[in-house]
Each structure stands twice: as structure tokens, then as C-alpha cells.
């Protein structure tokens, strides 16, 4: 699903955020990406979302070399990837329903089909009774769930999440993780950046540790971390 071949990213005037990173994530995997702040987690996700381009190396997503996706084709590319963010990035002046519907409206889907899919996605995150509320009327955990509903409403094959539990207490974090778990069970590939080590360990899935832009450790599902620590 995701293959990085010798990927380096250097920001102008800065140090290398990623250096010669090799990584493969298979279809249907659920992978946690961890490491200190500045280890390159966000940069990796930005490369996958085509917000940034690698300085060297190749990023292949879903069999497609991202270097060949022109600027004009980026929107179509992004529509096939679900994204969730630490600050959930909801539009505060629109209802829960409208926020979740946004990707489908952008894709030009018909009104009836949109409504059906949006309700299904909101139902999956357990917020069907709150679809008419504005985000500010929701708790932080609920806002994050709305963000996730928006990420999955297009039924993407790949879901990437940047610190989705960063602002949540342990109980709410577990709730969100269980939500991701359920999406993984129906075949969605997930890549979740987080530094909640305790939670990640409990999830028992593959962990990738980045350190100063390099792969420091990589574990099989539920297994020990292997690598030079």
C-alpha cells in the first residue's frame, strides 16, 4: 500500500527531516508511527498527502508513484486518502453533517447518496444524534470523532492520522483507537502517528519508530521492537 524507497526530505535552510528512509506497509495493515517531536513523523505523513515532496527517493502509494502526480492531479489523489488530524480541522460554522459531507460535496456526489453516506459515517462514530450541532457544541473527543467520520466517509483504502489522540484523555484515546481498529477490520489500511507509547503498546500492532529522520526500530504486529535503539 505504501512503499518508501530511500526517501530524504530537506527543508530549505533546515536540517534533514527524513534521511534515506525505506519502508513498506502492506494493504490491510494497521501501523503506528512514533518517535520524538521532530523525528520526522509529520514530514512522512505530509509526503503521503502530497503536501510536501521528497527531496530524494520515491514514495509509492497504492501502486502510484507520487512524483508522477502533477499539481493539478493532487486533489483527485487526496480524495482517495482519508486524513485525520490532531486539531481535527473542522469548519466551525458548519454542522456536524455538513463537515462530514464536505469530501462528498467536493467529489460532486448526488444529494441523496451524500446524505445516506454521511449518516452512515456519523453513525459509525456514534454521533448520529448530534448531526445538526455545530462543532463547538461538542466535546473534544466528539470533535475528533467527527473528523474521523469525515476521513472515512469517502470509503478510502488508506487512512492516515496525525496525533489523533494528542488532545484527549486516556479513556477517550482508547475509544478513538478502537474506532480505528474497527475500520482496520473491514480492510482499511491505517497509518497513525502518535507518541502515546503506552496506548500503542496496548494496541498490539506494528510500530515504527523514527529518530532524527531515520528508521530506528520496526516491530511486527504485537512483537518486540527490532532495531538499534
Amino acid at each position, binding site marked *: 500500500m505504501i512503499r518508501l524507497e530511500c526517501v530524504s526530505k530537506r527543508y530549505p535552510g533546515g536540517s534533514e527531516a527524513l534521511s534515506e528512509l525505506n519502508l513498506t506497509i502492506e494493504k490491510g495493515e494497521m501501523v503506528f508511527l512514533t518517535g520524538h517531536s521532530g523525528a520526522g513523523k509529520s514530514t512522512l505523513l505530509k509526503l503521503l498527502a502530497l503536501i510536501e515532496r521528497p527531496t530524494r527517493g520515491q514514495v509509492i502509494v497504492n501502486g502510484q508513484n507520487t512524483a508522477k502526480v502533477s499539481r493539478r492531479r493532487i*486533489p483527485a489523489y487526496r480524495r*482517495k486518502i482519508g486524513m485525520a488530524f490532531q486539531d481535527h480541522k473542522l469548519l466551525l460554522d458548519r454542522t456536524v453533517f455538513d463537515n462530514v459531507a464536505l469530501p462528498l460535496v467536493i467529489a460532486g456526489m448526488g444529494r441523496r447518496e451524500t446524505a445516506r453516506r454521511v449518516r452512515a459515517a456519523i453513525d459509525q462514530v456514534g454521533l448520529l444524534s448530534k448531526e445538526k450541532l455545530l462543532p463547538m457544541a461538542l466535546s473534544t473527543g466528539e470533535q475528533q470523532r467527527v473528523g474521523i467520520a469525515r476521513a472515512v466517509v469517502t470509503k478510502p483504502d488508506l487512512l492516515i492520522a496525525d496525533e489523533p489522540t494528542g488532545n484527549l484523555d486516556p479513556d477517550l484515546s482508547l475509544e478513538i483507537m478502537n474506532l480505528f481498529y474497527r475500520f482496520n477490520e473491514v480492510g482499511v489500511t491505517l497509518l497513525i502517528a502518535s507518541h502515546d507509547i503506552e496506548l500503542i503498546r496496548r494496541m498490539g500492532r506494528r510500530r515504527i519508530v523514527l529518530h532524527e529522520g531515520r528508521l530506528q526500530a520496526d516491530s511486527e504486529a504485537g512483537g518486540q521492537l527490532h532495531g538499534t535503539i
Partner: protein
Amino acid sequence: MARSKNPRGGKIGIPGRMLGYLLRHLQNLLGALGGLWRQPLASLMTVSVIGIALSMPAGLHLMVENGRALSGGWESTLEWSVYLRPGVSESRAQTLANELQRRPGIEKVTVITADQALEEFRIGSGFGEALELLTDNPLPNVLVVQPSADAESAGQTTQLADELKKLGDVDLVQLDTAWVNRFHAILDTVRRAVALASAVLALGVLLIVGNTIRLDILNRRQEIEVAKLVGASDAFIRRPFLYHGLLYGIGGGILAIALVQLIGFLLKEPVSRVAGLYGSDYRLLSLALDEAGLLLLAGAALGWLGSWIAASRHLRDMDPEF
């Protein structure tokens, strides 16, 4: 996902796609209207500025058109004053007038005798008392010759004037159109100035709309970034702003038409009073339907273009972050 499929997974025909396209545009239009409605004061200000900017060249254009229409009326009353040599008698003048009257190309010949001319001058000039001192009349007899409309339209008037000059008793043929020509030259200059002013004001409208849309875009930066993150194309994000600009332009166009008509209405009374004093039934021209349409079209086009420039410039720079 193949291009021919819609997100539903089923194929849709070209009519269905067209319908969807039109529906989305309609949604955008209504959305833009709603947006303007939610900020009535700001929208009204922008529309007013555009309307005033557009009404200025339209008003000037109308002024020039009125001038042309007015001078067109004068041109049809083209006539020559044919001054006879001093010493040519009044009866000779009358005979000459009768001869000329029979010529083709001449509509009418009137004799103004030296005595009549002096009397007119005495009353009209205010030099009455000074003229009393003259022992004899220094003025010649004059024939006022009006060429026929046929000769005028065939462009034979210059030739006719030349023939008049060659007559033995004629001293001087004066065309009373020289000042009409000067007036036309002035009008042409004014017309060019109006065209230049229109170009400058059009640029102004572009900048006004562009700046308004730019502020609008910056205010909605967060929304735009989120839309980009979930896969909105530049065209999708640009569309509501284009509709905003279009509506600003159309609103400005309508306001400009209303302003010009209002000014015309307010000037109607005084103009017809002045015309009445000159014995004319001249009526002030107002905007013709096609001119009003052109003004509206110009407003719409400028609004659209201004927002397109602003949107294209600023949306490119707004790449999302997380």
C-alpha cells in the same frame, strides 16, 4: 477509481453529468447570493463603488452622444452667407436671388438688404447710438443660400459654393459650418478622453473587485485549507469567489444604469427649457437598451475577471498544513 464512474460506483451519462454540473453552479450562485445577503453593508459598499465607477464613463458617453445628436441637427440647417460686392444694388440682389432659386441643388434663397442688416445690427449689437453717426450704410446686401437636402447628402455643397464664388457680383461666400466642424473636433477629443477614462475606471473596478475578493479569501483561509486537504480542486474552491465577483459586477452595472438614468431624469427639465429658449424641441437622450445591456455586461465581465485574478493568485499560495 475510473474517471467514467461517479462516487456512487455507477456510470452516469453525459446528460446526468451536465445536470450535476448545472446544479453545482446553481448551488454556488445561490450560495454567493446568500453570502452577500449575510453582509449587506459591506456588499452594498462594494457594489456602490463599482456602480459609481461604471456610471462615470457611461454618463460621459451619454454627454458626448447628446452633443453629437445636437450638432447633427445643426448640420442639416447648413447655409451660406453670400456677400455681394459693395455697390451692387438691392434690385440686382433680388434678381440674382431669383436666378439662384431656379438652380438645381438650391433649396431657398433669402435676401437680406443692407438696410435690413443695419437695422438688425443696430438692435442686436447695442451699438445703436454709435451707428447713428454713420452717414451711409457700410454693409453690403447679402443672400442667404440654403442648399437642398439632396445636394447636401450627395456631397455637392463644396462644388456649389465654388460656383457661387465665381459669380461676378459676389464678394465673399461664408460657410456657417466652420464652427460646427470645430465643435465636432472637440467632441472627438472628448470622446477619446472618455474612452481613456473608461479604461482607467475599468482597471479601477478590477482592482476593487480583486481586493474585495482577496480579503474574502484571506478571511476564509482555514476553510480553504481544509477543503484542499480533503481533495478540493482549485476550480472548486475558486467557483464561489467567481460568483461573488460576478454578482458584485452585475450589482454595480445595475446601479450604474440607475444612476445614469436618474441624472438624465434630473437634467430633463432644465435641458428642455434651454432648448425651448433656442426654439428647439431637443430632448435629452437617455441610455438605449443596448447601451444599458453593454454596461451590465461590462460590470459582470469586470467582476468575474477581477475575482478570477485575485482567486488564482491567492489560492495557489494557500497550501494546507498539519
